[in-house]
């Protein structure tokens, strides 16, 4: 029962992530890649993402400090960051990235800075949620989780 409850909990958590728009279809793709030979694949990818993308964020932070702003550079950095985020299915993060890039092309410094704060916020929020989710999943067993995910 407990197990079942846990399973249900995990499933619900997962579902809410999708429902609330934190994750999108791409995440499901990752889940589908997970199998017995690589039971923690999704978690590994997400961990890798957070590790790598931290670099982009700090670069963006630095670039935003400069005066005047180098919009093309910002755009480039954000493009890469966005690509990464997209590949794990980080939906809200991706949306904020798009806003950022729009402001970049409009050369709107304020807009960029503001949006960037949003990006960071979403990024951090998602990380917390995913960490919780993974932890929960591990408790119930990754495989099962995967099944449930499906």
């Amino acid at each position, binding site marked *: 029962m407990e197990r079942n409850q846990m399973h249900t909990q995990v499933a619900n958590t997962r579902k809410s992530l999708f429902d609330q728009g934190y994750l999108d279809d791409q995440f499901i793709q*990752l889940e589908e890649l997970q199998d017995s030979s690589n039971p923690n694949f999704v978690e590994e990818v997400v961990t890798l993402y957070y590790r790598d993308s931290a670099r982009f964020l700090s670069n963006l932070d630095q670039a935003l400090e400069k005066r005047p702003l180098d919009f093309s550079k910002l755009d480039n950095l954000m493009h890469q960051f966005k690509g990464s985020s997209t590949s794990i299915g980080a939906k809200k993060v991706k949306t904020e990235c798009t806003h950022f890039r729009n402001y970049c092309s409009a050369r709107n410094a304020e807009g960029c800075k503001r949006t960037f704060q949003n990006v960071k916020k979403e990024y951090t929020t998602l990380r917390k949620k995913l960490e919780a989710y993974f932890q929960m999943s591990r408790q119930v067993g990754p495989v099962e989780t995967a099944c449930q995910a499906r």
Partner: protein
Amino acid sequence: MNLGGGQVVNKQSMMPGSSGGSWKSSGTSGGGGDGGVPDQFPSGLRVLVVDDDSTCLMILEKMLRHCKYEVTKCNRAEVALSFLRENKNGFDVVISDVHMPDMDGFKLLEHIGLEMDLPVIMMSADDSKSVVMKGVTHGACDYLIKPVRIEALRNIWQHVVRKRKHEWKDFDPSASADEHKQSEEPDYSSSANEGHNWKNTKRRKDEDDEADERDESSSLKKLRVVWSVELHQQFVAAVNQLGIDKAVPKKILELMNVPGLTRENVASHLQKYRLYLRRLSGSQHPGGMNGGFMGGPDAGYGSISSLNGLDLQALAASGQLGQLPPQSLATLQAAALDRSNNAKSTISVPVIDQRNIFSFENPKSRYPEVQSQHLTNNNSSKQINLLHGIPTNMEPKQFVSLHQSGQHSLGSMNNLVLIQMGGQSQIHVHSQSQTQSQAQSNVNTHNGLRSNEMLPRGGVVDMAPTVYNPVVSVSQASPLVNFSMNHKTDSCGTSYPLGGSLGISSLPTASSALQGDGNLDTKIPRKGIVPSYDIFNDLNQNRDWGLPDVGLTFDQSQHTIQSGLDASNPLLLQHNRSSGRDLGGQNRNLTSDKVVLSPGFESRIHHNGSNVGQPRNVYVKTENDIDGSCHNTLYSEQYGQDDLLAAILKQQQQEGVGPEDEFVFDGYALDDLPV
């Protein structure tokens, strides 16, 4: 999955039709009747994934593994290139990201297309039309939008099959059958089919260029035609001889007279060549030049060939080339020029090396060989191909890339040129793209013209800048140039340094042939390197291509080339003519219109105006080898010529239009040469 492949291979080998080349199991890919398609296909497809984003890379790898493909991943383009170069037959398809910090995805695409001729799939989060279009023009066989779904990856095998089929069917089925068996055993067992064939072909070539012509063809047949330097040279010579307009596959085939080569092979190569030229012209000068060029894409093309022919002759004449595989040379000569007698294989030497260089096969080592004339069969053949092969596009690109690498401006150019020889592009590597085109055209025309002489100086006229120039010279051929430039790094040395050296050395000897006006044509011993050697020279500077010596016997040019080259992509600086030679150095004026067209003679000497005003990049004058740097840009003969050219052109543009004339493709500049 070698295993699978291996087995499959056997099956394939049995089937003459089977695309042998295609990766092992691809029985299906095979062109012709591969009935024995192994069930495993596309399992075991060997994929190389390149993306600087580790997350994406990891995901892609997992997805591809799920498709049962063999995956190799790397996050740097340079690393990917070295993987590919080390294992020529090691991969079946490449997937690359567009935005990468160390090298632009399109550049990588070009390199791969030129050197290895593998199908390349681009991917990016960027789905804007312009970027996708760019992928198309650079020769990507597909473009995926990120995030990539596994379904999209499942079907990538189709590109491998398609490519193989295309190449394979070019070959004569019967011939391939023989080859097949031969190659199949050694090849198949050893590596992926694709690679194998390539290897085979190459190997054969190396071993005995001369005698192997046949083998080459046959091996080529097996899976696909490997447009070696020699072959490409022959091709270009034939095209030049026929004239761009009249260069139809059937006639080209006849002229080339390469056993085992089918009309389809030629047709597809011609198409690539044209695309390459178009790309050059398109990128460079949408306007005038292009008009000219585009107007006669064929013309341009032909010009290139003609150049090649000349080059060959030059090469032959120079005797330096030495290694030019006799067969190819002979073929070339016969086809393109009368010079056959001179044509010693030597000519090929320069080319080959370059080619090698480009292809990295023998990067530098080749070059030296070249000089010695015997560019080692491979080299020579390769080199030669370079000249012929790739339409200027290639060259320019090569040069460009080369140039960019900053190593040898000229060198890069040379590379380009070489590359041509090598095979695909005749790239006369002339001046960075601009000149290149010009050069090419010049060269080409020369080829045609000269039947005996290198480029009848007057004849150069054919080259009428319009023909090729526009393309090449246009836009500074950045694409071309770029190519060269990039290549330069690799091939820098390789690129045609020959241009100078070859041409030059051959000149003396060739002079007899060329003797004509002293025009570069004759002088330029076409060392196979297509006049664009100028580029090489510059490039070569760094490399010492064996060619070097080419001695630039041309008395003149050599220096010009070099000088020019340094400036920009010396594409064609070759022009030995010191007098006219502006090529060398500067010219790269590509800006001007790419004058390069070697008619440089005009420019060179007197810049007829046609030359973009810049000193005609006498490039290519191969002989000019401006210092022998005939860099063997040997581009892997088969590159996506288009890419090369584009690259070169791009580079040129970037370079600021270096010596426009560089493109001097063929010897036209010779005229200037004070022979």
